[in-house]
């Protein structure tokens, strides 16, 4: 009598959620761009037995961006999912894992991230500002001005722009640009950079020190600029494996100064 195949794993089974958690941790640990993702739903899961105590698992995940930058040391459990009205970004990921003797390991992963549709947000919140394009000149100008302002006042290391995380532009009642961007410390002090900014390079991998800044530029009716940066200190990260397709602008050389 042929052996009865095991019942298919349900997407909400504890075992599936444990596999999903391992997959999400792998994705967050191997991406160096954007923000950390949190699980929103297990779309599908398939287990293919390979032999005694050995399975190959294919899992499809719906993820949502959190407010934690990818380089932030904050644990995922403490990262808040960006709300729907803040123009959430979703990640669709297909992950292949292997489970041998109860130990899970990721074999391959592919993700595609995309912002929610503007129409959906307009229905719920007509006046909410939406994500601006990364190469929007107002956004680039605001980020550049904010980073220059920060570097002109800091007594620490000179910071270089790594990438823009997200940005929004509000036109009414106040014309405001809000941008979040990742920065990296360089081998110059801010003072030394004033003399020769070209000589300021990102610190090497073993001394790297990344951070994240939030800038608010008010353009009309008054003019004001506020920028707040937080550096994370040196961290050892898994090697970067490009997993996410990223819309918008990619910088040929990390640390390329936008000024």
């Amino acid at each position, binding site marked *: 009598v042929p052996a009865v195949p095991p019942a298919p794993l349900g997407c909400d089974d504890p075992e599936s959620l444990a596999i999903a958690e391992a997959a999400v941790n792998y994705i967050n640990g191997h991406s160096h761009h954007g923000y950390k993702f949190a699980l929103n739903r297990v779309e599908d899961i398939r287990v293919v037995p390979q032999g005694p105590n050995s399975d190959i698992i294919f899992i499809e995940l719906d993820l*949502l961006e959190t407010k934690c930058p990818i380089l932030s040391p904050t644990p995922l459990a403490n990262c808040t999912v960006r709300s729907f009205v803040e123009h959430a970004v979703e990640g669709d990921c297909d992950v292949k894992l292997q489970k041998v003797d109860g130990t899970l390991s990721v074999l391959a992963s592919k993700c595609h991230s995309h912002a929610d549709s503007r129409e959906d947000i307009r229905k719920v919140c007509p006046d909410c500002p939406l994500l601006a394009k990364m190469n929007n000149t107002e956004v680039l100008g605001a980020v550049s001005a904010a980073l220059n302002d920060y570097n002109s006042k800091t007594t620490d290391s000179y910071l270089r722009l790594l990438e823009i995380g997200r940005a929004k532009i509000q036109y009414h009642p106040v014309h405001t640009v809000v941008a979040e961007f990742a920065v990296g410390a360089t081998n110059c002090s801010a003072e030394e950079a004033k003399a020769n900014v070209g000589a300021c390079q990102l610190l090497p991998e073993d001394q790297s020190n990344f951070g994240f800044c939030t800038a608010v530029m008010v353009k009309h009716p008054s003019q004001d600029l506020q920028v707040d940066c937080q550096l994370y200190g040196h961290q050892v990260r898994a090697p970067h494996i490009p997993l996410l397709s990223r819309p918008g602008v990619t910088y040929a050389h990390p640390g390329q100064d936008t000024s």
Partner: protein
Amino acid sequence: SVTKRAVAEAAQHDKVPRPVGFVPPPPPCPGKILHFDI
């Protein structure tokens, strides 16, 4: 002629009388949404 027997069997199961108040189990997938649907 080619017949799809597997589907027919499933259909027959559907016609099995259910006890009053029977709630079919949720489909194994997709799972429930933890935050919101986008």
